[in-house]
């Protein structure tokens, strides 16, 4: 098995009396898109900050490309980073911000992947306006552009779609998929579970600074989850499914019913309904990761 691109082991960080991250372990393999999930205060942002050398761990370590991360490391040139909301020098234009940020690393602007970055930013002529005139969404897009300037091998993104409209969010998801297909490893934190479910191959769930669960998203969701099935006869369907092994709670919600899967496949449920001469109109997965997440962190 290849060495992980990102490896966090025994990571612990305390701010005064608050234990922000508690003995955290996880790793991300090359080309994986890993979602870092957890409720507010779970320690996600602190973990990302340690990973990019902004915060010092009290114990444990974070490695990228096998090297322990230190502030100002040369390896950081291969990492595209977005930590919390995007921020810039407000009185400079978007273009000037990108250029100065890039050149501060001792690299020439000609070496930057400005074309890709500017197309991601999609700001048009506004790229030459002062950043203080930008909306939050524009800043976020410029932040993504900045993260891509170095043609990064690794992306560390904290809430990358925050402040974006639905169309822009979809574009970002498509971009992340394209980058992943090209071998870019991504670690992203997000509150949007549907986004993680759509984009991420893997997920790490944190709560109160600790690792709660981690692994491929499909494994985390498991065979479980909830499906909504639109049927021709809700009463009979409910009665049929309640007798079926591997089915959890069945909740009638006309014109269909919500069915909790507990070890049974969707196809088996549909087959049972059809066998009972009940018409099945649609089958829709319902908040699978959300259910798994809430179950893992023990929230209602």
């Amino acid at each position, binding site marked *: 098995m290849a060495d992980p691109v990102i490896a966090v082991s025994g990571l612990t960080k305390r701010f005064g009396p608050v234990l922000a991250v508690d003995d955290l372990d996880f790793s991300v393999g090359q080309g994986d898109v890993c979602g870092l999930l957890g409720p507010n205060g779970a320690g996600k942002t602190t973990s990302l*900050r340690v990973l990019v050398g902004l915060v010092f761990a009290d114990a444990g370590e974070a490695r990228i490309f096998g090297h322990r991360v230190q502030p100002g490391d040369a390896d950081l040139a291969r990492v595209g980073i977005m930590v919390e909301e995007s921020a810039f020098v407000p009185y400079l234009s978007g273009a000037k911000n990108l250029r100065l940020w890039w050149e501060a690393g001792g690299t020439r602007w000609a070496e930057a992947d400005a074309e890709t970055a500017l197309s991601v930013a999609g700001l048009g002529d506004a790229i030459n306006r002062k950043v203080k005139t930008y909306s939050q969404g524009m800043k976020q897009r410029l932040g993504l552009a900045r993260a891509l300037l170095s043609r990064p091998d690794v992306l560390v993104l904290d809430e990358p779609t925050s402040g974006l409209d639905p169309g822009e969010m979809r574009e970002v998801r498509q971009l992340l998929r394209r980058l992943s297909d090209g071998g870019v490893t991504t670690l992203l934190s997000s509150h949007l579970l549907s986004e993680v479910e759509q984009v991420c191959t893997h997920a790490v769930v944190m709560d109160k600074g600790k690792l709660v669960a981690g692994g491929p998203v499909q494994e985390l969701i498991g065979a479980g989850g909830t499906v909504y099935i639109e049927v021709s006869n809700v009463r009979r369907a409910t009665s049929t499914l309640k007798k079926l092994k591997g089915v959890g709670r069945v909740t009638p919600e006309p014109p269909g019913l919500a069915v909790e899967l507990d070890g049974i496949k969707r196809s088996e449920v549909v087959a049972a309904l059809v066998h009972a001469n009940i018409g099945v109109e649609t089958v829709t997965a319902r908040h699978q990761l959300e259910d798994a997440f809430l179950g893992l962190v023990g929230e209602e």
Partner: protein
Amino acid sequence: MTGVFRTELIKQLRRPRTFVALGIAVLIPTIATIALKANPPAPQGGDQGLFALAPNSGILVAVAMLRFMSRFLLVLIAALFAGDSVAAEAAWGNLRYVLVRPVRRPRLLGAKLSVSALLAITATVLVAVIGLIAGGIAFGWSGVSVPFSGLSQSAGQLLWNVVLATLYVAWSLAAVVSLAFFVSTLTDVPSGGVGAGIGLYIVSQILDSISSVGSIRYALPTHYLDAWNVLFFGRGPNADMLRGVLLQVGYVVVFCGLAFWRFQRKDILS
């Protein structure tokens, strides 16, 4: 010029507050010279006396402006440049993005400190140069000999002493710059660093005026602030000027040392 120094310099030079601060350093000597030309003051003692002597030689306008501006406005400008250099970037949230570049923290901090110091020196030099130019236009550049004042120098001597005085005044701001810079690395509130620099100056001035404070006064950063006056009204550079220079070295070593030590270990949470 290294990338990080160059980018820091561009950032500061494009800041509106830099234009305002350097504009003050240009405007006040200009306005003061126009006022002196239009309404020459009667001979008096102290700072007013220096202004009253200015019509004897335009070079003395620079001397008077250095004296007047070093009492507060240059301190304010120096504290402004140093006090918000790191804190302002943290307040914008941009510091974390600068620090994820492959640049070591001491190098970044060194660039920020150098740019702050350079701007403070620029402001001091501007006061002297604009004073010289405006004074020269208004009153000409000539030597002066004022009976009973101790001032008797050729134009060449005066110019050389203005150069020395400018360097001394600029270096006298070092303690303020160093403390403001150190505090700037501790806070995300730019006014905190600026206030600390100005606060140091005010407290030092107050304590220095209380004779009961005793020998501690000799260690106060403003104690030798006016020692350069001997360049014009004495026999040239003396031991007090040397003490003033060395005293600032001590403050620079302590405060800048603390700034680098602290920033190297700081968790960036802004």
